[in-house]
């Protein structure tokens, strides 16, 4: 498990290559990349600044990845999340899950992302024509995370 919070951009190909190196048991790699859009809630977005809670953010993501590892057969994971100022089309977040078979990789990758959206302490502030505004949490993200709750 690797979790990194950084201001710098990341190279998806290089990250996946590093994760796979020397691991011939890996048969499937699922990845998710989150990107800054140039429009949100009907307003043009010129850029955004991401704030986090150093220490807690890393712990929260590690806990989410641990839960994924307990539920699916996962060989390795990588989460990279950027903070600081970002422009439209910049990469924000990378989640990579390697497993023997695709089902585990797909499911664990989506689970990690859904939980990260609702549990990892990050906050986005957008720059719009009307000034800067803090992004509101979305109910749809809570619903997405809730889908993974274990029944019974």
């Amino acid at each position, binding site marked *: 498990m690797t979790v990194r919070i950084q201001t710098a951009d990341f190279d998806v190909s290089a990250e996946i290559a590093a994760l796979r190196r020397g691991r011939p048991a890996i048969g499937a790699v699922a990845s998710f990349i989150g990107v800054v859009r140039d429009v949100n809630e009907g307003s043009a977005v010129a850029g955004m600044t991401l704030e986090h*809670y150093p*220490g807690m953010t890393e*712990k929260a993501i590690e806990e989410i990845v641990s839960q994924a590892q307990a539920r699916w057969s996962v060989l390795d994971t990588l989460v990279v999340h950027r903070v600081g100022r970002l422009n439209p089309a910049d990469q924000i977040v990378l989640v990579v899950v390697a497993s023997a078979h695709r089902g585990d990789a797909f499911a664990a990758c989506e689970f990690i*992302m859904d939980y990260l959206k609702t*549990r990892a302490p*990050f*906050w986005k502030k957008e720059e719009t024509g009307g000034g800067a505004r*803090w*992004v509101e*949490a979305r109910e749809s993200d809570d619903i997405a995370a809730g889908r993974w709750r274990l029944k019974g």
Partner: protein
Amino acid sequence: MAAASDNTPVITVLYFARLREALGTGSERIALPAAVRNVEEVRALLVARGGEWKKALAPGSPVRAAVNQAVAAGDTPVADGDEIAFFPPVTGG
């Protein structure tokens, strides 16, 4: 972190994002009165300052809390040396 010389418990309180801006500070140290021993009581102590504090932290406002970097509820205990954080619902990813 050491307690004050009279053994009054002292905590560090952190504020993030919208709360940090509204309150004009990201961090402070607070000596706890005897009646303040959990997260809800810390919040009430801050709300009692009035003004922006009351507006930003009033009951019903969307504020989350953590104690020592773990998600906390209102009844989570708070003790000397603890790090308490208040922040809005998260919006990363």
